[in-house]
């Protein structure tokens, strides 16, 4: 086995049964397409369902003729449209790993993950903040009846927003960075023999 040609012969002795493998692959491809179609279908159902809710909500609050509730519904609508657009991008988006060579591809992975993670985190914080504000505005009219109620709910709103930005965000950001560092160190290991 000293001869390199023997090694090559041994290496190439592993053969895949092309027909059976192709049949298996066709099934996998079918399942993959089914999953993708299902994700898109679920997305559309969610979008339609949410549009119906929004529509009903808009009619309901228009009848009430409240400025706070109108602002609240606009905030909800903007958040939802943005979230649906964002999730659509996540469903249909694919990494172009067929374009770059392996070194470039693998070296850019941590950057891609870090940016993606931070974008997701930022999205979570902003959406949660606006959601809290919209809930607050929705009930503001009824809270105006007692000054203590306004004070209490405003304090609660500020506390919740502070928890999101001052406590949750740094914790989650640290977790993303830790995960990213683990990935980066693995990549360094790959290139340490260069």
């Amino acid at each position, binding site marked *: 086995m000293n001869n*390199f040609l023997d*090694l090559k012969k041994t290496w190439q002795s592993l053969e895949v049964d092309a027909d059976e493998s192709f049949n*298996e692959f066709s099934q996998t*491809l079918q399942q993959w397409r089914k999953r993708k179609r299902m994700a898109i279908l679920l997305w559309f159902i969610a979008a339609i369902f949410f549009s119906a809710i929004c529509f009903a909500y808009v009619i309901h609050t228009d009848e009430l003729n409240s400025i706070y509730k109108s602002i609240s519904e606009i905030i909800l609508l903007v958040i939802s449209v943005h979230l649906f657009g964002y999730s659509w991008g996540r469903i249909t988006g694919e990494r172009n790993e067929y374009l770059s*060579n392996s070194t470039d591809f693998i070296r850019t992975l941590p950057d891609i993950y870090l940016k993606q993670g931070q974008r997701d985190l930022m999205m979570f914080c902003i959406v949660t903040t606006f959601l809290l504000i919209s809930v607050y505005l929705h009930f503001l009219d009824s809270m105006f009846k007692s000054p203590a109620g306004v004070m209490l709910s405003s304090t609660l709103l500020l506390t919740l927003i502070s928890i999101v930005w001052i406590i949750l965000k740094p914790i989650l950001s640290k977790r993303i960075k830790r995960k990213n560092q683990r*990935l980066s160190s693995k990549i360094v290991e790959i290139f340490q*023999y260069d």
Partner: protein
Amino acid sequence: MEFEHLYKEYSSKIFRVCFGYFNDTEMAKDVMQDTFITVFTNLKEIKHQENIAGWIYRIASNKCLRQIENEKKKQLGSEYSFLNHEETDHRVEDANFVRLHQCIAELPDMDRLIIGFYLEDLKQDKIAEILGLSHSNVRVRIHRIKEVLSKKMKEDE
């Protein structure tokens, strides 16, 4: 080019490269199928049909390297029905085959891919292009890997 024809022509080659990288049948099969899903979905976008082999190998090597995202440990794999049965039975009992793959499994990540491509008769400049390394780097590495493999195989004999 028709996809089925491409699959049948390259599936064994890609499977061997993946198996050389992971030394795990299940992982190799998953990555091979994942590679061909990417090939299938992006086949229309490839303009230079003559470089299709390099393109498929590049997808496969990127998919292999991307597995560092997973924490799963490597292990010697079991058999799969899509492997050629006659060949498989003979292969598993083939001590040289097992020894060769054990020796390759001990190589660094990039070297496992380089030797896989080299054993698939890819030219050094093509390997360099796929992996994004310089030609001289690939040449030196192949020389070193050959020496290491020969030495290890001799030791085990």
